[in-house]
């Protein structure tokens, strides 16, 4: 097992954990965090796996930088939306409000 | 276009287009009735004055139209025109105000059909006019609108439609076999066709509905009594003959010997002639009796048709006889039917004359000497005489004809009897009386100047039949009188008890 493969495997594990979190955790902020963990996993694979004539490949490094920027932008957008969402509905999950929870519902 | 052809077009189109008058407002449409006797006049002129042999070619009509006239058609046309004319005259006086337009429309169309089918030589226009006559005739039958009339109309229509379909199928098969659209080509083609019997069967049955062949006759005794009297006259005098004409122009006469079909027709004719008489004498209404009389008379003509089918050599001789008989019967029967609606005058002398005039055409039917009936009967006897006819059943024909004569007179007597019981007394509308008198005159007098030709058989005119002929004509009548008198006595005694 080479070091690069180790990085890649670690990245894959992170990806898996993030995926689990993204799908299973109800709270929005947790989902967002899980997304970031996934992203990190992918970046790890990206820099870890490619080997350029024995040494590290410079291109993935550049790509990952771009990727991080994109991820930050996405995270920022998500946070804005979540805040607004919480503000409007008072909820932190994406479940559809059932009739009794809705204002003007049964009670 | 020769003048005859033009006249033919006028003869057909006048009654055909006459119904358009019905589109006039109802007040003015009343004049329609006065046109009724005029409608057949062009046809009458055509029949009287034109020499057979002309033809009118209309390639654009249907599948190629051809109208023409020959001796046979001339007599049929003459009968048709005369009868419709006198009946039309009668109708002017007979008709009441209600449904007048409808009656006139149906009258015109039926007449157009009847004239047209007599002139048509191509299949399509023949069949067209035949169908026109059939369907428009329904309107005449149900005119009165009573429940009985509607029932009769229904029976008539059902049977007529079946008849039409049989004719259609028969004509289709024949036309395909002949590969021709002309009636004249059919007989030879039918005689040679593989499905000969099917075709003949279809045509016999199809036209048989009109001609009142036994088992196909049911509509006749129902329809004739309920129709208005002038309609019954033409129905029985002219339209019924259309079926006969249909046979004459399509069946393979003179092409091949068809003893089977001949025998069948003879049996059918015999059944009709005698059976109808048996049923007819039991009837109570005068026009029903006359209807059965028509069936019976048609039976006699069917005998001749059977003979002609069986012996190809004899067909040419029998055709003029059939035509003659048709003419005679049509005129006499028309006159009889019209008399059913005549009211008796009160004065005794006039009464006697009226009765005489009513009775004479009837006796003519039975073959009273010096009448058209005598001529027709003698010609028929001569035509079907056993020694000249090559046919297994020819021996039975003579007795059959004699029995038929007896039956005929019995029916006439029954008619007079029932008529005497139902007839009203009073004044007749002048047109009605004129129509009836004209019909009687036609039957008794004008007949002798009509262009029938049976020169080969009997010497005509038969002013003085030979003694044996006289006897042959008279003894069946005597038998009938005796039978009638017997029946009268029996019924009296039954009633007394």
């Amino acid at each position, binding site marked *: 097992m080479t070091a690069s493969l180790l990085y890649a495997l670690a990245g894959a594990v992170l990806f898996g954990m993030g995926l689990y979190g993204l799908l299973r955790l109800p709270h929005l902020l947790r989902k967002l965090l899980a997304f970031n963990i996934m992203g990190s996993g992918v970046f790890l694979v990206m820099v870890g796996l490619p080997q350029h004539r024995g040494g590290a490949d410079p291109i993935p490094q550049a790509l990952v930088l771009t990727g991080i920027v994109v991820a930050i932008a996405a995270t920022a957008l998500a946070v804005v939306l979540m805040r607004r969402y919480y503000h409007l509905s008072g909820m932190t999950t994406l479940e559809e409000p059932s009739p009794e929870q809705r204002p003007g519902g049964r009670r | 276009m020769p003048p005859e052809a033009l006249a033919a077009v006028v003869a057909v189109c006048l009654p055909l287009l006459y119904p358009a008058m*019905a*589109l006039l407002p109802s007040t003015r449409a009343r004049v329609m009735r006065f046109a009724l006797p005029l409608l057949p006049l062009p046809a009458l002129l055509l029949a009287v004055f034109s020499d057979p042999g002309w033809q009118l070619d209309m*390639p*654009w*009509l*249907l*599948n*190629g*139209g051809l109208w023409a006239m020959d001796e046979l058609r001339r007599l049929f046309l003459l009968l048709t025109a005369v009868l419709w004319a006198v009946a039309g005259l009668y109708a002017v006086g007979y008709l009441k105000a209600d449904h007048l337009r*409808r009656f006139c429309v149906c009258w015109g169309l039926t007449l157009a059909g009847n004239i047209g089918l007599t002139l048509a030589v191509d299949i*399509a*226009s023949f*069949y*067209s006019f035949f*169908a*026109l006559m059939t*369907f428009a005739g329904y*309107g005449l039958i*149900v005119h009165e*609108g009573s429940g009985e009339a*509607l029932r009769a*109309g229904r029976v008539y*229509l059902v049977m007529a*439609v*079946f008849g*039409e*379909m049989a004719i*259609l*199928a028969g004509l*289709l*098969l024949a*036309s*395909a*076999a002949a590969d021709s659209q002309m009636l004249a080509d059919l007989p030879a083609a039918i005689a040679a066709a593989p499905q000969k019997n099917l075709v003949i069967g279809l045509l016999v049955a199809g036209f048989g509905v009109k001609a009142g062949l036994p088992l196909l006759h049911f509509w006749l005794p129902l329809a004739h009594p309920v129709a208005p009297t002038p309609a019954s006259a033409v129905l029985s005098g002219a339209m019924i003959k259309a079926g006969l004409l249909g046979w004459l122009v399509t069946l393979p006469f003179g092409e091949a010997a068809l003893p089977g079909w001949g025998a069948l027709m003879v049996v059918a004719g015999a059944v009709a002639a005698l059976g109808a008489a048996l049923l007819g004498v039991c009837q109570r209404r005068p026009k029903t009796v006359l209807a059965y009389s028509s069936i019976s008379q048609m039976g006699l003509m069917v005998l001749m048709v059977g003979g002609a089918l069986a012996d190809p050599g004899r067909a040419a001789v029998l055709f003029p006889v059939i035509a003659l008989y048709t003419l005679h019967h049509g005129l006499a029967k028309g006159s009889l039917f019209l008399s059913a609606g005549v009211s008796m005058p009160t004065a005794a002398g006039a009464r006697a004359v009226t009765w005489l005039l009513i009775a004479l055409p009837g006796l003519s039917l039975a073959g009273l000497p010096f009448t058209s009936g005598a001529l027709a009967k003698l010609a028929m006897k001569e035509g079907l005489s056993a020694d000249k006819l090559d046919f297994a059943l020819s021996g039975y024909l003579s007795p059959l004809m004699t029995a038929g004569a007896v039956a005929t007179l019995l029916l006439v007597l029954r008619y007079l009897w029932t008529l005497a019981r139902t007839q009203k007394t009073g004044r007749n509308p002048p047109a009605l009386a004129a129509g009836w008198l004209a019909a009687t005159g036609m039957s008794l007098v004008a007949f002798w100047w009509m262009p029938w030709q049976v020169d080969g058989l009997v010497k005509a005119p038969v002013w003085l039949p030979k003694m044996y002929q006289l006897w042959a004509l008279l003894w069946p009548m005597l038998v009938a009188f005796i039978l009638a008198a017997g029946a009268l006595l029996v019924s009296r005694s039954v009633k007394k008890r």
Partner: protein
Amino acid sequence: MMLSVWLPVLALMTSLLAAVVIFALPEQGYRLRTAVNLGAALVKLGLVVVMVWGVFRGVDYGVSFTMAPGVAFVLKADALSMMFAGLSAVLWLLTTVYAVGYLEDSPNRSRFFGFFSLCVASTMGIALAGNLFTFFLFYEMLTLSTYPLVVHRGTEQALKAGRTYLIYTLTGGAVLLLAIAWLQGVAGDLPFREGGHFTENDPALHTSLIGIFVLLVAGLGVKAAVFPLHGWLPQAMVAPAPVSALLHAVAVVKAGAFGIVRVVYNIYGVEASSVLGVLEPLAWLAAFTILYGSVRALWQVDLKRLLAFSTVSQVSYIILGICLFGPVGAAGGLVHLLHQGIMKITLFFCAGNYAETLGIHRLDEMDGAGRRMPATSFAFTVGAFGMIGAPPLAGFITKWTMGTGALDAGMDWVIAVLVLSSLLNAAYFLPILHRLWFRDPPRQWPHERRWGRLETSAWLYWPTLVTAVVTILAGVLASLPFSPLSWAELIVLREYSP
């Protein structure tokens, strides 16, 4: 010649443009709309007449361009297409006149006439289509543009009928599409050609060709209302009378029948079809449909439903005719394309007249209507006798020609079918005629309206009479050149000796 390219396109465009203009006109623009309608109909009739004359002289009208890879959009005028085009052009004019009167004062006229013109454009396209692909294009366009007309009344019943109509026709269209695509895969893009394409076909193809034929007939049979695909037709009778008249007597059902004619004649070829053995079963199916439709009609109490079942029966005559292997029978089938159209439209006009003038919809309300409306009843009588096949009307010419053709082809059983069908037709039409003429009218009609001098509105009166007279003339003058029969014989002549 430029004209030869532009004439078919123009003929198509007149009604298409009319549709666009009518949609754009305001609902209140009654006069202008009527003028546009009638003007377009007249122009189209003129164009068609010019084309008929040209086709008769042997001019080729056509235009084509590649539409998608492998398939072309082809418009072509041959004798057969002119037959259908002529029928729809003439009847469009009459029906437009009729519809203007029929829909007087009713809502949604703009919508109605717009889609109406679209329908006619589709019919024209179907007539002029030069290959199956183009045919299909207009065939589906017809389906779509008819739907708004069927549901025009907007009642629950109408909408239900519309749904049934769509289910049938769209499914039929899908089947047809499959068949056309399959055929394209097997043999490429086939233009309609006299004599067909498969005269010397490869035995290896037989199975697929038979399969394709079955699918084609199934797809087209829906519109042609062949048993058991006829269920939509009686229901669609909730549409206004002009719709039933033009669309269900002429455009829609004829489109199906016309398609089958195209398939048999111009794709497969009669020879090939009979080698494949597909014509005989089709003939039996058509014969069964003829009888089935008539038998069902016997039990109807609603006049338009009765006419619908009668249509089911009559359209199959066309199919039966082309299945008779021989020129005479084929001419009989083809001529019925015109005859049935003209007769059935007469009957539907009459049904509309009764409904609009007296409020009569059911048979038992028709007692004595002949007294109140003699001209309409005359037209009805003519139409009914034509349907029965009574001479000398158009229907008789059909039956006679078909019967002769059947005997030529040795298919004698067809005679029995013809006779039986005539009997059944008589059995349901004659009682109606009896009611019309020989029963006494009721004291009060269900819903009577009066129009001055004529028995009904002049817009309704004249088209009805004209079609009735044409029904008579088509029969009486059958042997004239340019009569339906002569034209059908011309088509057959070109098909059998390409």
